[in-house]
């Protein structure tokens, strides 16, 4: 067990280092001179040289890389080209919004997957099942920005039911964004749990339980839903990475100042330091979750402990 965890963490660290090399290389493939970006167009040669010395731009690439990773590990992601604020403090301000949004989204997806998914799986071929299958394909196929605009138009402009921008009015502002963000992942979760449920129903011990006259409710709760849950845990490990990508779109449309919203603004302002810093953060979160999910899966299902 401990060996497994350590080995998985070691793997994640290697992956992280490779990712930093890639991101660092990309940064230096940038057209343009970083010193000039910092100093501005009209800066003199002397100013440029001073900036190069200050930011160690005059040293060799491996040295610069080592310095960059060293700063990363100490939690220093540089400072924004536009606002001059430390990227870490921008991130700290943006994080609560995104975490609230993602928590609400994961909750919706969980309810959809474990509830609706199992329900239609138990009633395969019925009217509800067929409707849900079609809706799931539509949910996967509708781009978030289309759904977000549509939701804004219907709930905000047409019916005036819910706030469509910002979270100044408190948690109610998260209702529409999280519903929109949950459509794609929720559809995948429902499909996954539906298939898992169908698979579980075919297993010998479930068939035996059924032939012995167990009630449908007991069957669902004790035999089917519980074992199908493992798949949902694995699903959320990958899903949270995708959700971080989705927040860029949803937070932009609904004007939320979370990780995605800030990243979206950094794109339009060409603030590469912020773009890189936030991307590194997203990768780290993803890798950490990946390890965590593997450990949780192992605790839930002893069979996977054999490596």
């Amino acid at each position, binding site marked *: 067990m401990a060996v497994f965890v350590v080995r998985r963490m070691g793997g994640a660290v290697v992956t992280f280092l490779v990712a930093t090399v890639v991101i660092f290389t990309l940064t230096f493939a940038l057209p343009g001179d970083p010193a000039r970006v910092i100093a501005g167009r009209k800066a003199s040669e002397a100013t440029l040289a001073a900036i190069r010395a200050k930011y160690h731009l005059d040293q060799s690439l491996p040295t610069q890389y080592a310095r960059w990773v060293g700063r990363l590990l100490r939690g220093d992601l540089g400072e924004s080209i536009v606002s001059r604020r430390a990227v870490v403090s921008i991130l700290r301000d943006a994080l609560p919004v995104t975490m609230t949004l993602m928590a609400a989204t994961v909750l919706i997806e969980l309810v959809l997957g474990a509830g609706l998914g199992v329900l239609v799986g138990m009633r395969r071929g019925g009217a509800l099942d067929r409707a849900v299958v079609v809706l799931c394909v539509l949910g996967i196929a509708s*781009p978030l920005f289309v759904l977000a605009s*549509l939701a804004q138009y219907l709930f905000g402009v047409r019916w005036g039911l819910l706030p469509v921008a910002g979270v100044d009015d408190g948690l109610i502002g998260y209702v529409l964004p999280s519903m929109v963000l949950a459509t794609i992942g929720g559809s995948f979760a429902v499909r996954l749990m539906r298939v898992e449920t169908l698979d579980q129903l075919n297993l010998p011990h479930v068939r035996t339980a059924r032939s012995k006259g167990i009630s449908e409710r007991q069957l669902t709760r004790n035999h089917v839903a519980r074992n199908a849950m493992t798949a949902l845990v694995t699903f959320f490990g990958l899903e949270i990475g995708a959700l971080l990508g989705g927040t860029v779109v949803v937070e932009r449309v609904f004007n939320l100042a979370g990780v995605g919203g800030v990243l*979206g603004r950094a794109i339009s302002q060409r603030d590469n330091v912020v773009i890189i810093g936030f*991307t590194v953060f997203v990768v780290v979160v993803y890798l950490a979750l990946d390890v965590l999910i593997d450990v949780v899966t192992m605790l839930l299902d002893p069979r996977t402990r054999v490596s």
Partner: protein
Amino acid sequence: MTGTWLRRLLRMARFRVAAGLVLVVTVLAVVPAAVVSLSPADVAPTDCSVRAADGTYQDRLPPSSTHWFGTDAQGCEVFAQVVWGTRTSLYIGVGSGVLIAVLGTMLGLIAAISGGRVDALIRRTCDVTLGIPLVVGAILLLSLLAGEQRSPTEIMLVLTLLGWPGAARIARGAARLVLVQSYIEAARAAGAGNVHVTMRHVLPNVLSSVVAYSSLTVGLLIAAESTLTYLGIGLQVPSVSWGLMIEGAQRSYATSPHLIVFPSVMLVITVTAFVLLGDATRDAVDAHIQVAR
């Protein structure tokens, strides 16, 4: 053997609907001129005229018999733009989908057959790439690598670069299932080399899974392109794209909803068609694999 899942697929109602839609969209993309008389130059928002010859304003007209989908803020035909936008979407979606399938299959097969360090290297690369959400990765690559003007081809290549690991994982997994079969051992014992085993036994079995995955991916890539364009990191004017149309109509969606509705509906229909096609294919392939076992 391969014929069985194809025959099963052709019988599926879902597949027929999806294939019909894909066919229509493909025709629009290949010969848009057959449907709309305007050339792409007339479609580009920069070249449209707000005023007609008789001096009346033609901007943001609601749908009518002369302008089926109405006109946009520049007085351009929305219908013509929606039709020409199909070409852009399919060029990027199908282009990167095919490249992803080819690259992914090659690398997945190499990983499965070589094993050891090569396998570990390819798997690790997949992990790193898949560790970055597609949209975030594309934002990073496009903002760092591409210049101010981004062409459809550049976007296609960036999506390919980020998308191949998915296909490689599928191909590797499918290949490993085949490689442990006893007939492979028999073929090897009979003196078959890596190339023979791959081409004759592994590839045909891997291909069906990759094809199913790729169709789904084409749909998601089309959605990704329009999303990137909408975020301002994808295509720009004078390209004609649904993402650009929707982005441009953002400010007037309360007064002229038709500017958003038509490209959005077209986008959702197109993505749905490819996702449904991939779904049906995967189900047919899965059922076939289960029967074969």
